[in-house]
C-alpha cells in the first residue's frame, strides 16, 4: 500500500508543513513587508513598495537609536555576567557535596519558571517602591531605592531577572564539567598545581566548546528579551528599558506600522546573525576541541 518513501514523507510532513507555514513563509513575508509602508489595519494590497525607506528611516529615528543602545547595553552586561555566574555555580555544584541533587534542582528551578509572565509580575512586585526588597531594606534601617522609577536601576532590575535564570546554562556547564577526565586533575595534583591553577589550565580550556555553545544561545536569547521590560517597566522610564523586541511589538501592534516593524525585526535578525558569525569565526582562536589536538596532520579545525 505505502512504500517506505511515502511513509517517510508522511512522518516528516507535519514538521515540513509547519516549518514552511510558520517559519519559512513569515520569514520571507516579513522581509517583503519591510520594503513596504504596510499598515496593520489596511488591506495588504494597498501597501506601497517603498524600497529601503524603512531602513533609512531608522537613521533619523531617535527612538530606534535609543532602543538599539539600550539593547546592546543589556546584552553586553547580561551575557558575560550570566555565563560567569552559571559557570561559577556549576563548578560549585560539581563538588561532591551532601544533598547535591537538591541544590542542583533548586538552582535549576528559576530557569523552568524564568521566562514566564508570572515571574515577571512577581519581579515587578519584588522591585516595586513598596516591594519586597525595599521592605527588607527598611527592616534593617536602610532607605529603599526607587528600583523601577529611575532609568539606571530599572535596567538593573530587568538584567537581574535574566541573570536569575542561569539554570539552563548551568546545567550545560555541569554536563561539560562531568565530561572532563578525572585523571587530568590527578596528574595536576601530583605536579602540585593549585585548585585555581587547575581551573584555569584544565577546566576552562576543556570547557570552551560548552562555553561557546552557551555563549551563542545566550546572545540569541538576550537580544530577544521581551517579557521582562514589557511587563515590569513597559520600556520606561525614559525608554531606559525599551529593548528592540519591545519596540518591534509596539511599532507593529500599537502603531500599526507593519512595514517599519518588519524592517526593525530584520535589523535585529541581522545583528544577531552578525554576532553569531563573529563567534563562529573567532572560535578557532579560543575554542579547544580535543580531537583537533589528536589530529596530527592539523588543518582540520572545526
Amino acid at each position, binding site marked *: 500500500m505505502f512504500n517506505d518513501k511515502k511513509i517517510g514523507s508522511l512522518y516528516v510532513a507535519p514538521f515540513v508543513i509547519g516549518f514552511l*507555514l*510558520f*517559519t519559512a*513563509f*513569515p*520569514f520571507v*513575508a*516579513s522581509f517583503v*513587508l519591510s520594503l513596504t509602508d504596510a499598515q*496593520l*489595519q*489596511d*488591506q*495588504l*494590497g494597498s501597501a506601497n513598495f517603498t524600497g529601503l525607506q524603512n531602513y533609512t528611516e531608522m537613521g533619523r529615528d531617535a527612538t530606534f537609536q535609543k532602543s538599539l543602545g539600550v539593547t546592546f547595553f543589556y546584552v553586553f552586561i547580561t551575557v558575560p555576567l550570566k555565563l560567569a555566574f552559571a559557570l561559577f555555580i556549576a563548578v560549585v555544584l560539581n563538588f561532591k557535596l551532601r544533598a547535591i541533587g537538591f541544590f542542583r534542582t533548586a538552582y535549576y528551578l528559576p530557569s523552568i519558571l524564568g*521566562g*514566564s*509572565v508570572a515571574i515577571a509580575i512577581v519581579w*515587578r*512586585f519584588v*522591585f*516595586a*517602591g*513598596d516591594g519586597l526588597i525595599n521592605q527588607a531594606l527598611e527592616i534593617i534601617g536602610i532607605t529603599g531605592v*526607587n*528600583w*523601577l*522609577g*529611575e*532609568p539606571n536601576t*530599572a535596567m538593573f532590575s530587568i538584567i537581574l531577572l535574566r541573570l536569575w535564570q542561569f539554570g539552563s546554562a548551568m546545567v550545560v556547564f555541569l554536563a561539560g564539567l562531568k565530561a572532563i577526565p578525572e585523571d587530568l586533575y590527578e596528574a595536576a595534583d601530583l605536579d602540585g598545581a593549585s585548585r585555581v591553577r587547575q581551573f584555569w589550565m584544565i577546566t576552562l580550556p576543556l570547557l570552551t566548546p560548552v562555553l561557546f555553545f552557551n555563549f551563542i544561545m545566550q546572545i540569541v*536569547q538576550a537580544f*530577544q*528579551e*521581551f*517579557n521582562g521590560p*514589557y*511587563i*515590569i*517597566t*513597559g*520600556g*520606561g*522610564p*525614559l*525608554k531606559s528599558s525599551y529593548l528592540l*523586541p519591545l519596540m*518591534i*511589538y509596539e511599532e*507593529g*501592534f*500599537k*502603531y*500599526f506600522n*507593519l512595514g517599519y516593524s*518588519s524592517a526593525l*525585526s530584520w535589523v535585529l535578525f541581522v545583528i544577531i546573525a552578525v554576532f553569531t558569525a563573529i563567534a563562529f569565526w573567532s572560535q578557532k582562536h579560543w575554542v579547544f576541541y580535543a580531537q583537533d589536538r589528536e589530529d596530527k596532520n592539523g588543518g582540520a579545525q572545526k
Partner: protein
Amino acid sequence: MSNLTLTAARLHRRNLLLGAAALTGLSACSKSQTSSSNGGAITLRMSWWGGTSAHKATLNALQLFEKRHPHIRVRGEYTGFTGHLERLTTQIAGETAPDVMQINWYWQTLFSRDGEGFTDLNQYKNEIDFSQFDARTLSMGTTAGKLNALAISNAARLMYLNKTTYDKSGLSLPDTWDSLFARGPQFKAKLGDAYYPLDGLFQDFIALARSYIVQKTGKALVNSETKSLNCTRADMHEYAGFYAKMIRDHVWPSAQVRASYGYLPQQEMRPWINGEFAGTYQWNSAIEKYTDTLAGKQEVALAPYPMRPGATDAGLLYRPSMMFAVNAKSQHPRESAMLINFLLNDPEGVRAMETKRGVPVSKAAQKILRDDGLIGKLQQDSEDMLARLPINVLESPYFEHPRVRDGFQDILEAFGYGKITLEQAGDALYDDINAILHRVIR
C-alpha cells in the same frame, strides 16, 4: 522554546495570517464564510470583547433574539479586549469579519476612513428605531454621510474621588481647579507624603490637561483637517505648566513615584487599592473596574467637574464607548440591523444586556433600565452630570492615537525627570506633537 522566541513566533504568525489571507487567495473562498443561509435559515456571526458578565449577558440576549426569529441563528465570537483589535483587523483584511461587530469609536478611522468600510445603516430605517438616538450620537457614527456604527453607550472622562480618604482628611471634594490645586498641599499636611488627591497614568493626565486647555480655547485640541494642534504655542506652554504645577504642589504623583510601582494599571496599584491615591480621571464606563479593587469599605464619589472662569465648554472627551457596526460585505445586512435594534432598543434585549456595556444611549433602553432600578448610583450621577455640563466641542479621534498619546507622554516624562526645562517642554509639546499629527493623519 523560550517565551521570547514564542513571542517572536507569534509576531511572525500574525504576519502570516494577514499574508495568507491576502496572498494565497484564501480570502476568495472565505467570502461566503461571513454568514450562511441554508433552507431559509440564516446564520449571523457577531463578535465582541468584554468580561465574563458581559459575555453571559450577550449570549443570553442572542438566545432571546433567536427565539423571536426562529429562522435566524446567531453565532457569538467573543474575547477579552487584549488582542481583539488585532484579531478583528486580521479578519477584516482577510474578508472573514463577522456580520455584526462591536467596535470602538476610534476604529472607524482605521477601517472606514471613507465611510465604505461598514454597511450604511441608514438603509435600514425600518429595522432600527433611530428615534431613540439623538443627533449627536448618530453623527459620531457617521463618516461621509454613511451611518457606519451605532453607539451602545457613551463615555466621558470624569473625576472620581475616594470619598473615604477625603473624609479622613476633613477636606471637601474640590469643585474648582483652584480648590483641586489646593488639595495637594492640604493632603500632604493632613495625611502625609504618601497621599495624593488625584492620580492616574500619563494617558489620564494628558486628557485632564487637555480639558484644562480646551476650557480656555473653546476648541478641540486637534484639528484633523489641518493635521495640527488647534491652539497656540502659548497654550502648550500652559499645558506644560499645568503638569509642572500638579507635580510641584503634590496634586498628582510625580513620574518617579508612579514608575516606582512598575508598569501596571492604576486600579492594581497598592496606593489606589488602599486609598492613598485618592482619585482618578477616568471613563465613566470603566469606573466600576476601579471601585472593584478598593480594599475594605471605601466609597468613591463623582466630584463636581472643575470649570475655568468663563469657560463655555467643559472640554470633555465625550464619545461612544462601544458601538455596533455591520460588515460591509455581510450577506444579511437586514437581519444584522434587526439584531442591533433588538440589543439596543427592544425591552427583552435591553433587559438581557443590562448595563454590562455602560448605561445605554438609547432612550428606550435607559427608561427600561431606570424603571427596573438597574442603573447604579455612580453611573446615574455620571449620566446626570454629562446631561448638565456644556459639551459642544468634539475632539478629533487622532487625539487618542497611540502615537500622539505617547508623544505627549515622552515630553512630560522627560520634563518630570529633569531632562528638559519647562520652557523646552512647552516648545516640544507644540512642535513635536504637530509633527506627529502631520505624520499620523493621512
